Structure formats: C-alpha cells, structure tokens
C-alpha cells in the first residue's frame, strides 16, 4: 500500500512536478525572509546576552535579593557605679515568619481575613504554647486601598485569638521579617516545635533581644519604655532616621538617648522568588549593638529613696503617689529620682491585652507611667517661701534684720484675714530668718501683701514675687535630659484676667470656645468649625469651671496665697529641687541632667555628656546668707519645723517643710481635699565634698515634716554614710 503504485488521487496534474520558476522565486523569497529573521534574532541575542548580559545579571540579582533587617540589640543604661538598670538580653522566642506560612501573609490577608490554612497553624501553635485561643477584641491597623486607589490606614477591632491578633498587629510593617509571638518559651516547648517542623509551617524557634530590668520597677519612669517607631499623634515615625520596623525609645532616657542606645541594624540577604517567598540566605551583615548610657543615678540612693517613699505613702494609706529628686546642687547631676507608683517596664516585653493594660495603667492604677518628679506640677506650700523671701529681700521691700509682729496668728488686709496653719499660734516679733525657721505664714502673708502690685491693670505681670518666680524659671520646663518635663505656673494679674475671660467665653460659646466636640468624655473646643465639632450653646455663668463668676480679678489675697505657695502657683518637684539648689550653691540655677557619658558595650567612653549651662540669679550674698540661715534653723533650730527629723543629723542640713492644700481635678483623688506633703533639704558644698539637694513630695501626705522629711533623712543617711539609720520622729511644734 505504500509506493508510487499506491492509491490516492491519480489526476494528471498531480503527476506534474510542481517546481516551476515562479515557485522557485517564492521559495527564494521565503528562504530570504527566514535568513533575515535568523540574522536579526542572532544579533539581538548577541546584544542581550553578550554585550549587555552583565547588566541583566545585576537586574536578576536585585530581583531575588531582599534585605531583611536584623535589629541591633539596644545599649544598656547603667547607674553611676556601672550597675545595670536596663539590659538587652537574648531570649528564646517563637516567631512567625509571615512569608513561609501555608498562605504567605499580606496586608489584606491578616486578622479577620486570615486564610484557614494559616489559622490552623496559629491554633496548633497556641495549643503547643499554652496560649489562649479564646477570641477577644484585637485592635490593629492595616494599609488598604481606598476607592481612589491610594493606600490608607484602616483600623480594625474584631475579636481574635491571641496569636492571630499579634500577627495582625504587625502585618502592616512586616514584609520579610518575623513576628515574635512568645518569648521565654520553656525548652520543652521549643524542642517540640522544632521537632514538629512540618506541623508548624511559618513558625520559627529563634532568639530575640528583649530589655531586661535587673532592678525591677526601680526608676522605671526615668528609664522609659521601648516600642514600635510610630508616632501615635502623626502616624509617622517617632524617629525619622530610624526604619519604621525598629523598636525605639518611647519615653524617659530610652527616648532621650535613643540615637546612642539604638545601634545600627544589620541585615540578612534573603533570596526570594517572584512571590516573595523565601528561597535561601546569604552571609548576613551583623548588627552593631547600641552604646551604653552611664547615668548619674546612685543605685543605693535610688533604692533607699524609692523604698522610704513607698513606706511614707503606705503610712498615709497607700492610695497616693509621690516623688523624690536628689541632685548635686553644684552641677545639676541627678543622683536619684523616683516616682511612685511605679511598674516593671519588662511588662512591655510581652504583648498586653487591653484588659491587662487597663489593669496595669488604667483609671485606678495611680498612673504609674507618669513621672511625677518632672511631669507633675502643683502647689508646693511653704517650700515656696524661699522664693518669696528672695523676692522681698532682693526688691528691697524687706530687710534681713527687719522684724514683724505676728501678734495674733492672723493677718488681715482689706478685710481679708488669713491664719497660720492650725496649731501654729502667734509668734510675736520675728525677723525673716525666724519666720523661715518656724514657717510663719502670717509673716509671709505680710510679705505677699507688701509685694502686691497697686494696680493689677497697669501691672498685669505682677510685682517682685512674680518677677523672681520667673527668674527661678518656674514658668519654664527645666532643661533636663528627659522628655516631657513640665513647666509650672506663676499666678499674675494677667493670668487671672485670662482665666476670667476664658470662663466668660466658654460660658457664652465665643472665641476659642465657639465649637466643641466630646472626645472620651472630655470637651474639646475650637474657634473654627471643624469636622465633628458643633456650635457651643450659651450656658449659665460659671458653667465651665475655669474661674468663679462674678470674679473680682486679681486681689491682694492672690499674692498672699502665692507667697506661701498656695493658690494657683504650680511647681514640679524637679523645679523645686532647682530652687533649693540655687540656695545651696550661691545663687545659680543649674540645668539638671541624668546622662553622664556614652560608653561602648566594652566600657570605653565614646562621649561625655556636657551638662547644660547654669544661670546666675544675681542674689546678693547677704540676702542668700539670710535665707540659708533661716533654712538651717528650720532643720536644726530649737523651734525649727523639721528639727525633730534633721536635728540629730551629723552634717549641717538646710531644709524647709511644705504642706499644700490641693483638690485634684483628675485622677483617683479627684475632688478630694488633699494635703501635699513637701520637703526640700540640702547639705551645701561648703559643708561637704558631696553636696546634695533633696526634694520629697507625698500626695496627701499631710504635714511635710511628718511624712516627707523622714524620707529625705534616710536618703541623706544613705548618701553620706552608705546606710540608713534608725531615728525617732518627734512632732514639731511648727509646720
């Protein structure tokens, strides 16, 4: 059946050989086309592969290599003697690598959109680690496409179990990195997960750096916290020069000295495929650990101060807070500083549920995150009298040897009468030194009245008392090397007028109070209409509670209250420390500082932190001597306010007690008439080679001598002799 004789069409034309000149030409044409095409293809290939091949090799490399940052361990924060306050330690951890999950994680596939295959891994992992699988509210933010096609941050709050919640919370800023879901995992669980690798795709057992706090809650607010590099207000990074995925200092020294502590991230070069899935790794570039910060904190003093302050708080019921500051009055270095209640910052090493956070830092916690030593301002009571005395003497309105007859224990001016503290009777003829010794309120009311301006409208900034308060920089935030230090308040006629005007505008819904919005139970006002704001209605006089209406404005009574540190005057413990340091160092306002030097991890000094400048207040030596004498008498004189605490101390202590009436407008003691107990004491450089000024404040501590002074006494004892001493507190006749 095969062959020329076989079947098939046998028409004549089939038998005719098809080749003819016409076909030959056409075959030649097609052959030429083929030749030209091959030539073009070869030339193009030569160009692509031989001439520009290396360029394409480079492109192929950038295609596959991703830099995965390896965060640098943070530097340590050390006490003055080198004791570790914060340390970065490597701990075993369970990590989720989003790209090697059964379904690789993307911003859209997280949280509520977790693929079932990933959810199964999370569930198995939770069981293996003993973590909760019960869903609870989980807040996270992802970048999503909006209708216009641009990426916007979207906030979610579904109910999720612990692990998917942690993953979702990190999905937005993790591309090829890892997400830590558990740390300090027992060896047995690490081993179980390592051995059952196939059951846990996307789960890694590794080590992560965590901050360790060997001293627990000690000085927590000074050290500060570490967290994601995101500014909650602007949404941008907190530190612009640090990648968004890095952890940075959020508060305290961690924030202030972040650029030293941060270190430089290393990176691993990870090879990926087109889907961004992990294919392998090349030699990593190790991170450079952050440098250490050596502080001026004296560990022993810090411990004693914290312990004694806690004891003092416990003595008055334990529901309140307090703070202490110990500073070198000559150069401003902070020897100890504390705020109670405190917390152990290691709590932030593990993700907190909202419930845990509320319990730790919520409304009834006493606000442990607040650094009361630098961030709280309030009336400081009689401790303010040194400023009053300085102002009176320096302005020439009182002479060092001038006497005043406190005949009745009461001082009246234009019908307003103010009395000495309860229990303090009439003291008769006294000079300013004696007035300081016994903290005679009537004497200082008199000074306040003397220094009051005749016409508050022509002198809106007040008189000598306001001028000297300003010179002591009560109205400015101290330049300490810690963030968010608060400025105090100096009451002036203008200040009172502004408050009255604000009350009137608020009640009438005008000026900056024209529109309002309620955020979290708090009123927010705006002068211009803004989104969410509504027009403020007209309300009865005095509705807003900024000032009483009708209000006579600035009166002599305001100045008298200010003279004894009451009323509207507000000072932070740190500011008061600076005031007393000036008394101790000959009249200089120092810049307080905690940081001493930057050291490499091996201890070499990288940089000495230069303390800020000190300002000469230009107080005449005679006047200063007069006040110092008064302060010395107050701590050691026969009728000194804290003689019964400090009188027996071997070194010359200069001190002043203070008790301030205060009604907090927020916090757990809102609306309760509270007596702030203050104590400011120093041992000047003339008496010792290690001068120190100490301020102690106990919220609702009652009389300063009874509650705050003993804390200072124990701190002085620790500072000079290295141990605390037992001593008996008597009851001073004067407060």
């Amino acid at each position, binding site marked *: 059946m*095969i*062959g*020329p004789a*076989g*079947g*098939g*069409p046998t028409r004549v*034309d*089939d*038998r*005719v*050989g*098809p*080749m003819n000149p*016409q*076909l*030959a030409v*056409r*075959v030649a044409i*097609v*052959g030429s*086309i*083929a030749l030209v*095409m*091959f030539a*073009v*293809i*070869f030339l*193009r*290939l*030569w160009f*692509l*592969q*031989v001439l*520009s*091949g*290396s*360029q*394409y*090799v480079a*492109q*192929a*490399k950038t*295609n*596959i290599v991703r830099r995965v940052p390896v965060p640098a361990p943070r530097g340590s924060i050390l006490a003055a003697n080198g004791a570790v306050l914060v340390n970065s330690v490597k701990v075993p951890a369970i990590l989720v690598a989003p790209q090697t999950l059964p379904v690789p994680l993307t911003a859209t596939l997280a949280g509520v959109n977790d693929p079932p295959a990933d959810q199964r891994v999370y569930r198995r992992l939770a069981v293996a680690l003993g973590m909760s699988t019960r869903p609870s509210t989980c807040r996270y933010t992802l970048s999503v496409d909006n209708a216009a096609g641009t990426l916007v941050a979207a906030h979610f709050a579904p109910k999720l179990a612990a692990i998917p919640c942690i993953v979702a919370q990190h999905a937005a800023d993790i591309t090829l990195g890892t997400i830590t879901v558990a740390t300090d995992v027992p060896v047995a669980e690490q081993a179980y997960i390592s051995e059952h690798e196939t059951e846990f795709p996307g789960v890694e057992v590794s080590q992560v750096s965590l901050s360790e706090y060997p001293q627990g809650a000690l000085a927590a607010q000074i050290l500060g916290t570490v967290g994601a590099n995101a500014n909650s207000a602007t949404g941008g990074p907190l530190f612009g020069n640090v990648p968004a995925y890095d952890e940075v200092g959020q508060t305290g020294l961690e924030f202030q000295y972040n650029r030293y502590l941060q270190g430089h991230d290393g990176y691993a070069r990870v*090879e*990926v*495929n*087109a*889907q961004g899935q992990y*294919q392998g790794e090349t030699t990593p570039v190790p991170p450079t650990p952050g440098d250490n910060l050596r502080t001026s904190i004296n560990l022993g003093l810090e411990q004693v101060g914290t312990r004694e302050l806690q004891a003092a708080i416990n003595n008055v019921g334990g529901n309140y807070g307090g703070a202490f500051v110990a500073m070198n009055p000559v150069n401003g270095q902070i020897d100890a500083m504390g705020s109670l209640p405190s917390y152990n910052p290691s709590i932030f090493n593990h993700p907190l549920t909202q419930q845990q956070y509320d319990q730790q830092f919520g409304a009834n916690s006493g606000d442990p995150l607040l650094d009361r030593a630098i961030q709280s301002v309030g009336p400081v009571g009689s401790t303010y009298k040194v400023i009053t005395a300085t102002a009176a003497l320096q302005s020439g309105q009182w002479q060092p040897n001038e006497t005043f007859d406190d005949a009745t224990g009461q001082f009246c001016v234009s019908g307003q009468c103010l009395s000495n503290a309860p229990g303090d009777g009439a003291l008769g003829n006294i000079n300013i030194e004696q007035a300081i010794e016994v903290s005679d309120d009537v004497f200082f009311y008199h000074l306040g009245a003397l220094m009051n301006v005749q016409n508050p409208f022509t002198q809106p900034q007040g008189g000598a008392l306001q001028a000297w308060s300003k010179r002591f920089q009560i109205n400015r935030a101290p330049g300490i090397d810690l963030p968010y230090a608060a400025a105090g308040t100096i009451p002036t006629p203008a200040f009172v007028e502004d408050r009255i005007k604000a009350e009137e505008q608020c009640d009438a819904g005008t000026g900056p109070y024209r529109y309002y919005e309620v955020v979290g139970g708090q009123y927010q006002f705006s002068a211009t209409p803004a989104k969410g704001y509504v027009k403020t209605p007209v309300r009865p006089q005095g509705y807003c509670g900024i000032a009483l209406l009708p209000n006579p404005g600035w009166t002599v009574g305001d100045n008298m209250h200010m003279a004894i540190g009451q009323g509207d005057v507000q000072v932070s413990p740190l500011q008061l420390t600076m005031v007393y340091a000036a008394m101790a160092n000959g009249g200089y306002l120092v810049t307080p500082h905690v940081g001493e030097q930057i050291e490499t991890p091996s201890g070499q000094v990288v940089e000495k932190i230069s303390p800020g400048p000190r300002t000469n207040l230009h107080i005449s030596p005679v006047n200063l001597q007069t006040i110092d004498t008064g302060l010395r008498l107050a701590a050691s004189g026969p009728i000194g306010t804290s003689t019964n605490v400090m009188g027996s101390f071997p070194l010359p202590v200069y001190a002043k007690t203070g008790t301030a009436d205060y009604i907090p407008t927020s916090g757990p003691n809102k609306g309760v008439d509270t007596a702030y107990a203050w104590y400011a004491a120093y041992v000047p450089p003339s008496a010792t080679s290690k001068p120190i000024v100490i301020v102690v404040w106990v919220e609702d501590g009652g009389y300063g001598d009874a509650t705050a002074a003993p804390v200072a006494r124990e701190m002085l004892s620790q500072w000079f002799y290295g141990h605390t001493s037992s001593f008996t507190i008597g009851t001073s006749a004067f407060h």
Partner: protein
Amino acid sequence: MSSISPLRLTEPVTRQRARRAIIFDPLLLIAAVGLVGCSLMVLRDMRVSYPGYVSKQALYAGVGIVACMLVSRFDYSRLREYRYAAYGLLVLLNLIVYAMPAIQNAHRWIPFPLFNFQSSEFGKLLLILSLAAVMVERSRRPQSGWRTTFRMLAMALVPALLVIGQPDLGTGLVYVTVGVGILFFGGIGWKQLAGIGGLAVFAAVMVIAVGPAVGVNVLHGYQKQRLTTFINPPKVCGQNDSTCYQLQQGLIAIGAGQKTGQGIKGASQIQGLFVPVADADFVFAALGDFYGFAGAALVLSLYALLIWRAIRIMTMAKNLYGTLLAGGILSMLMFQVFVNVGMTIGIMPVTGVPLPLMSYGGSSVLVTFLAIGLLQSVYIQARLASGAKARVLLV
C-alpha cells in the same frame, strides 16, 4: 507493512523493500528530535519549579515520534480526498471547546483524563490539509485569481476567528498565516498578494486604532496591550501590566544567561518563577537563562535546520499537494518560531504562540510531530517517485 515477511520474498524485492523502509529525511528527524531533547533538558532543569512536566513532555514526545513515523509511512496524497471532512472537523473541534468548561478563563481545551485536547492546535494541521487541497483544485483555474484568494482567505478566517474568540489570538494568527502561505506557494498573483497585504494593514489599523475609538473592541484589552507593548516598553511596568512584566522578566532572564548561561541553580529568574509561563510560551527565556547564548544558538540552529528541510521538501515534492502541504507546514513553523522567539527577545508582539517542540504541552508537541511526519511523507513519496534523482536532491 504487516505483509512484509522476509522469508517469503525474493531477494531483489527484499533489497528494494528494505531500502524503501529506511527512506526518510534524516536531517529533519535530527532537527525535530534534537529540539524535543532540548525541551526535555530545559524542563528537567526547572523540575523544582515545574514538577512532573519533564516526564509528561517525554511521554508526549514519545507518542509524537511514533505518530510521526506512522504518518510518514502513508502517502499524503490520499488526504486530499478528505479535504471537506478535514475542514468540517476543524470547525467542529473549534466550536466544541466553547461548550467545555473554561480552564484559566479560556475555552481552548476538550478535557480528557490525563490529557487536555487543544482543538486549535490540531486544527492547524486540518487547516493545512484542507486548504492545500482546495488550492490544488483552484490552481487549475489560474484566471480566477481574486475568487481563489477570497475563498481561501475566507476558509482560513472562519476558523481563525473561532480560535481568536476562545481566546487564542496567537493560534488564530497562525491560521491566517497558513492560509496566506498556501496562497503564496500556490502561485496566487502578486496583485492578489498586494491586496492581502493591504487588507492586513487595514484590519490591523481597524482593530487596534479605529475600532476602540468608535467603541468596537474586537480584541481584549490585554491582547491589544500585548501586541503593542513591545514597540515602546516602559522602563517601569505598571502594577497591573502583566504583559510588560512578562516581557521585562523574560529579557532579564535571557540577558542574565550571558554567553554560557547561569546553570540550573543560578537561573534565578526561572527558578524563582519571575518569568511567567517559562515552561511554555517563554521557554526560550528559560533556555537563554540556563544555557546562555551558546544554548540559544544551538536551538536556533536546529530550527534553521528544520526550516531549511521544510523548504527543501517543499521544492522536491512529487505533486503540488505535497508542495502546498509542506508550504503550509513551513508557514506554520516559521511563524511560530519567529514570533515566539521574537516575542521573548522583545522584537515581536506578545502573542500566545508556543515554540514548536520546545514549549511544554501535549497538543503542541503532538501536532508538530504529526506535521514533521507529513513532511517526511512528502519527502519519502518524492524519493520514491523520482528514484535516483532524489539522491542528488538530498545533498
């Protein structure tokens, strides 16, 4: 051949039959087997990313080679009789797929267990068989050039449009090319050829430029994008511009191959799945990445050999039908090779045309081997018809 029994035959007959049995074009076979061997090598190199492809392709190649040998044993001339049946089957097969479940959003396949039958691929052969036969018929009436042209074009365009609708623009264009090729080799006048050229330009302008302007979109957006992207490729591809991405990644893969290739492990563009469909339409990119200029040159040489043999066989055919069959197959092969390779190296539009014998795919490999079998049949018949003359032709 079952009748062959050496014991019963006389010696001269045996010699004659034996010689006849080994008649085939060895160079054509070398080219085809060499190419499918290269395909298997490339697929084996990327077995991690495309697991199981190499063994399936080997199976298709084995079946294809057997089919090729079987087909080459038959006299192709008999197929002329079945021209209308072949054409009917062609249209039918390309209609059936529309009733089949879509695979990857396309109605191109008739699913069988183990194998998805791609109608349009087999249709290429059916079209060649039927068009060549019709052309032979029409060539007896040389005065009716325009009518022949129109009829042939219409016969090619109907299935072509069916295929383009599946959608498979590349194979549809193969149909048109085959139609024009057979007309060209069938001796249609230059006037008519010029007319076809004019029509092609007109159609292209209408479809790509005028049509969309008046709201008639013959091509899908992505198809148009594919056709035009290569002319002016953007430096940075748009997020949803998969054509641009494909082209760019393919170029990087080929370029990165340099002179001798990056080897199996080094070819990150392929192993990392950066080049889409590196197993099929972009297999030349994979070849370039693995074996560099050297490998690409070798494969191109095999294609040159294949095309040269097709041209040679066309010229030596014993009758016009053989010439036109070979001409149709030549048109198909040239179009696919140049368009596919040209697309991969960025000098041709992106059309989904497989690279014959190199691209992974059962239908494509099988059809190409059947076409080679037909070429062999034309060759064998020519040799048998012209006796000793063929030996001269061979060289």
